[in-house]
């Protein structure tokens, strides 16, 4: 019995806290149009400053979403490459003795398959190996006559990467003319490049974020200045500071959410269109293809879109907090 009472108390407290939050008021108004009171809202719904604020927020939110989406995407495809590259090594078998060559390739393959941490061993046939050289040698019969080295693609267990240097040493002591390439150099170079790209992206993100904060704060401030009269009158008729702040928070939060959603929606459209653009671009030569490599398929996955949601929440909260600060500042001069 006591427990139930306590629970009720907690519930009551919770309901009160939630009902008091401007977010709830705004979400409620967005989800279902609340039965409108006869009277106009206390805070002026549409002023020139309010409209300017809406435009500023929408644009800044759009830019912030674009930047964060792009950084997220590059970061994501960089991670994908690393995973791919790290899980693949190549073994090269040089034809020392032409007669025994096929047998040697099979033996090396079997040896590799026995090593711990190796998931799959797939030796390339001589045609496939030749295919790889085509870009350099052209389409000629010369290939069949040449002693082309054979490649064995080895896939290793991503979850428990084996020590490749041990495997390499074992290979080299057992077989002659066999080398193992774990793309280490290429990997570390790539890592540097992508890391600096992601870092650069973050720097841009920070700059855009700072610009967003600054412009939203200043636009909210100027919108608040035009509301000075309302704040004063409310104060004089006996409204508590919290009541006034709450009215303004509700109003500015709803501006922030609506404008932020417009911006995020714009960015979403951009990212949905991007794969189409990329496909169009990728038919346009080497540079485009490289770019494509960089951003992957240019498809933003769903956590990326959740990021947009977070941007909207931050932007709207900023707007709300600035308005609250503005209210208290104006009230302070009267108390």
């Amino acid at each position, binding site marked *: 019995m006591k427990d139930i009472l306590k629970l009720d108390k907690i519930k009551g407290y919770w309901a009160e806290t939630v009902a008091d939050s401007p977010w709830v008021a705004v979400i409620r108004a967005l989800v279902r149009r609340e039965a409108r009171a006869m*009277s106009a809202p206390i805070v002026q719904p549409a002023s020139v400053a309010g409209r300017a604020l809406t435009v500023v927020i929408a644009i800044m939110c759009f830019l912030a979403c674009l930047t964060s989406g792009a950084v997220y995407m590059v970061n994501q495809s960089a991670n994908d490459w690393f995973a791919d590259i790290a899980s693949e090594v190549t073994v090269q078998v040089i034809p020392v003795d032409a007669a025994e060559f096929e047998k040697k390739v099979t033996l090396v393959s079997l040896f590799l398959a026995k090593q711990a941490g190796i998931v799959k061993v797939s030796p390339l046939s001589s045609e496939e190996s030749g295919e790889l050289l085509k870009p350099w040698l052209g389409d000629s019969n010369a290939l069949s006559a040449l002693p082309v080295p054979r490649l064995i693609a080895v896939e290793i267990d991503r979850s428990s990467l084996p020590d490749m240097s041990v495997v390499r040493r074992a290979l080299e002591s057992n077989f002659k003319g066999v080398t193992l390439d774990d793309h280490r150099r290429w990997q570390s170079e790539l890592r540097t490049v992508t890391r600096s790209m992601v870092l650069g992206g973050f720097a841009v993100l920070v700059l855009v974020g700072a610009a967003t904060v600054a412009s939203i704060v200043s636009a909210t401030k100027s919108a608040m200045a035009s509301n000075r*009269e309302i704040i004063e009158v409310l104060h004089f*008729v*006996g409204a*508590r*500071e919290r009541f006034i702040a709450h009215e303004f928070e509700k109003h500015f939060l709803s501006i922030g959410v609506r404008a932020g959603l417009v911006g995020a929606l714009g960015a979403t459209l951009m990212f949905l269109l991007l794969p189409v653009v990329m496909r169009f671009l990728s038919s346009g030569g080497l540079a485009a293809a490289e770019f494509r490599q960089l951003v992957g398929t240019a498809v933003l996955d769903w956590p990326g879109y959740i990021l947009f949601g977070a941007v909207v929440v931050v932007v709207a909260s900023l707007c709300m907090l600035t308005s609250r600060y503005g209210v208290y500042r104006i009230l302070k001069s009267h*108390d």
Partner: protein
Amino acid sequence: MIRFENVGLRYGLGPEVLRDVDFHLVRGSFHFLTGPSGAGKTSLLRLLLMSLRPSRGLIHLFGQNCADLPSPERADLRRRIGIVFQDFRLLDHLTTWENVALPLRVFGKSEASYSEDVTDLLKWVGLGDRMTAYPEVLSGGEKQRAAIARAVIGKPELLLADEPTGNVDPNMANRLLRLFIELNRLGTSVIIATHDFQLMDQCDAPRMVLNEGHLEVR
């Protein structure tokens, strides 16, 4: 109910606008506050509304020392005071009706509970057909009446009116004065700041006269 002890007021570093103001008003009193322009009538009313703090001295309102009240309590005291500003201060984006209803809305009452009272009061002050008009299109006298209606709608214990009849004809001034007297009869203390001697002569009430910062009650 209201007690001023040695109150002095200055704006910033300027000269003292009010000096050694001492008075005591009991519940249910009715006073005129008069004095030449710039004498400090509005300033005195702002002190009473707690929108200014005195530079020195003590102000007691409703038995409480205003100086050391936290802000929510000051807001609660303000709810017991109705004020008519010299410059009306109606909100331009609300209709006359909504402006008058504003204090009740702020007090958290439901619209259904006060809508009739607001309409009745507006009719009483002669704004029955201007209820849906916005302050922008009201005449000076109409704004003044709306401001008065807003001040009295919450049945305040103390009514402060700054030049409440400055913009209306003698007939309407008389009518508004009767509204104030009626309120006073119901228990509200009233202070009317005015330089309208004709108005003051209509009613035998004590006058607080401000001159060069000093207050004298006659």
